[in-house]
């Protein structure tokens, strides 16, 4: 289910930048790995955070112009999707937060 979220974002990134399919997916996979996340399990909230904080820097380092604006647009498109579209994803941190009743 969450792999769909990864594919969704990767496809958008490919459309919005000069990066080809391999480059856009590779960039996202590297960013996710460096952020302690996995394409299989990343949630909508987590993706939005790295799109606003980490991905712009990575895109700039690959020569993509207006990286921040592109990432802001991507966040908007993720948030415009129905709330239950990727709800099958389990957030480990959220589970371990909840277990202590916090």
């Amino acid at each position, binding site marked *: 289910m969450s792999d769909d979220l990864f594919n969704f974002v990767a496809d958008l990134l490919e459309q919005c930048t000069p990066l080809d399919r391999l480059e856009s997916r590779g960039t996202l996979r590297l960013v996710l790995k*460096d*952020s*302690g*996340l996995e394409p*299989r*399990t990343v949630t909508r909230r*987590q993706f939005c*955070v*790295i799109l606003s*904080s*980490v991905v712009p820097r990575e895109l700039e380092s690959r020569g993509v112009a207006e990286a921040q604006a592109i990432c802001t647009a991507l966040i908007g498109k993720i948030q415009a999707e129905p709330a239950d579209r990727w709800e099958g994803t*389990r957030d*480990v*941190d959220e*589970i*371990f*937060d*909840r*277990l*202590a*009743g*916090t």
Partner: protein
Amino acid sequence: MLDGAWIGQLIAAIFYLILSARLARRASQTGERPERLLSNLFFFTAISYALYLVPLIVAIEALWTPFNFAGRVSYIPAPIFAALFTRDVFRRQSRFSTGMIYATSALLVVGVGGSAVVGDWEGFSVGNPFFWFEWVGYTIPFGWAGLEAFSQYRSSLRRQRLGLCERIVCNRLLLWASFGAVQVVVSLVLLRMYADFETNHAFSALLDGLSGALELVSIALIGLVFFPPRFYRKLVTDAGGSGAGDN
């Protein structure tokens, strides 16, 4: 088990029963499966420990074998629920996880059932091949839980730097990994105890005390995961100063 050395197990049984009830209540409030799985894990652990303790507390030797066997049987679901929790939380979409659950279930059922068929009701006989099925069946799930949680703990440190994970949650993953590791050590201690028992027909006082102490360590770790006192939360949260991940 020696006089007094079972105190750790008695405390653990009571603690796990209380924890199970609390998690069951939380599961009914949230409707979430991980809480339910953990509640079941600790419920069957508590029941099993209690059954092992009955003949010791009432001091009737004739009850030793039937209650030991009942304790073994009632423990079978516990490692299976541990494996289900690990799959649900850490590796939900993985064939390996499903295989681990089936393997754990098969090992435990064959181990306990097989040893009963050949007359080893207490399951202390290391020389009995079925012993090893059971031992692996209750050791591997906790080792797996520990490894998955430790891997997640390492990832969570990176998430914490981005503000995606709170420091206390990172710490909770480390505590759960430590609980899994301690359970594996308990299994190794039990293995040595059973080997001694087969040779000397008595448990080693040192190992018996050690297994009791490890139960208390397990309780402490689990207590910090599920009932973290305010001072501990503050200690963990303040430990790294005001980093990006402190919420």
